[in-house]
């Protein structure tokens, strides 16, 4: 189609807001009690950040890789693809991110986690907590059933929010940012077209994380780093 430029996002959005959010209810039911395992993974991530030493970096990368792969398969490939023709491509993107995280976890030079204390570290830690704690509550804030809660490690948005925080703490190389940032744009645009109040959350996180990353690079020596 040569006239793609004449299409707005609303022309291409092929599902309704209730259908989109019911996916999470169906997903939550289908994978239960995987949410409990996801919470444990989230707690392990927090512990890795707080500890910031030893094998924390490799552990965090490994756990995140598992979460990204899980979301790629159970959400994007198995469910979102059912209502969005782009779903398989999103699945591939999330799987690619999982591969990159695996590479990070297994390379000789382990990822080092910067201290979460201080403004930048604190912001990064806040992003992680946003994904782990705040995101599951957004459904209730939006007046939807708690059954539609988006849980870290199960749903894409909280997984990406927490990942942004970890990437900041890692001072991760640029290619690890690509898929998460792209998803922030895709998800934010989708939710805004659906008229969901949370549509600004992930794009806002992405912008702030990018700013923080550049500030961190400029002030590379301002934050203490811990090699693991």
């Amino acid at each position, binding site marked *: 189609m040569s006239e793609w430029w004449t299409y707005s996002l609303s*022309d291409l959005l092929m599902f*309704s807001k209730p259908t989109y959010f019911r996916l999470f209810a*169906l997903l*939550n039911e289908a994978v239960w009690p995987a949410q409990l395992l996801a919470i444990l993974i989230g707690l392990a991530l927090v512990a890795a950040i707080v500890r910031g030493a030893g094998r924390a970096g490799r552990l965090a990368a490994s756990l995140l890789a598992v979460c990204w792969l899980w979301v790629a398969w159970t959400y994007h490939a198995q469910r979102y693809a059912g209502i969005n023709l782009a779903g398989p491509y999103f699945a591939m993107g999330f799987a690619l991110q999982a591969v990159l995280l695996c590479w990070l976890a297994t390379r000789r030079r382990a990822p080092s986690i910067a201290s979460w204390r201080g403004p930048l570290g604190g912001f990064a830690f806040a992003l992680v907590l946003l994904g782990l704690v705040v995101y599951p509550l957004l459904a209730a804030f939006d007046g939807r059933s708690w*059954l539609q809660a988006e849980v870290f490690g199960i749903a894409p948005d909280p997984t990406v929010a927490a990942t942004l925080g970890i990437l900041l703490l890692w001072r991760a190389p640029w290619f690890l940012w690509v898929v998460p940032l792209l998803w922030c744009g895709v998800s934010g645009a989708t939710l805004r077209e659906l008229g969901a109040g949370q549509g600004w959350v992930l794009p806002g996180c992405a912008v702030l994380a990018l700013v923080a990353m550049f500030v961190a690079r400029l002030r590379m020596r301002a934050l203490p780093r811990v090699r693991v």
Partner: protein
Amino acid sequence: MGLASIERRRMLQAMLAAGGCTLITPAGAAAQPPVTRPIPSSGEQLPVVGLGSWITFNVGADAEARAACAEVVKAFFAAGGRLIDSSPMYGSAQAVIGDVLARLGHPPALFAADKVWTSTSGPAQIEASRKLWRIPRFDLLQVHNLLAWDAHLPLLLRMKASGRLRYVGITTSEGRRHGEIVKLMESQPLDFVQVSYNVLDREVEQRILPLARERRIAVIVNRPFRQGELTQRLAGKPLPAWAGQIGCGSWAQILLKFIVSHPDVTCAIPATSNPQHALENMRAARGPLPDQALRRRIVADVQRLI
């Protein structure tokens, strides 16, 4: 109680609140058949209101949502509806329609309209679509948004010639590529053309609708409510006094009657996920239609109100 049970209960409560499910009683549906228009190339009569499936039927594997779609289609057929339109571009809509038709025992009144969308592998896509609909053949296949029409139109015409298809058409939406639409209407043996037309978007009145009359091409109208925008913006606005003259009890019916009262329009295809709305839409295919003077007044009043 499982998570699905709670969600199911919430959905059923919502449907009952909306008057769905068991409350569907298309009063008068059997007593007064819907207004029909002939397909010019064959003379076959079609009710002037059909059923679209964009967004509303793309519910994936959600069993409760599929059940709600079945209620919509059940109400549509009970009220005398025939034409259901879909596309491989509509996500899971084709599969949902196939599921729904099977549940309803494949209503014989169905007029199945679908599209071919990809730039390659037209036959494979058409066959995949047919399997999803679970029907032996389509009544109408259209080239979706003119995508690869030079490859697809000859294919569809061959299918028609061999008896594997009854009608051939082309589609566009929101005013795109009207120049090419006109050229194809002038040069190709089309049975149908599908365009966007509503009380505010009336460009097709200038060239396409008169040409359809001249070339004896049936016209399907998509986006009659601008994908819900018009009904949302008119919600809560009191109905004008003249609404009663044409038997309209809602803005949706007024908007639909405006469209189907154009003599060159064969069928409008509003989409809905609400069984009550399906019935309401079908009621627009009954009773008197606005004359030219009232059509002008509908345009003026709607423009004033939104």
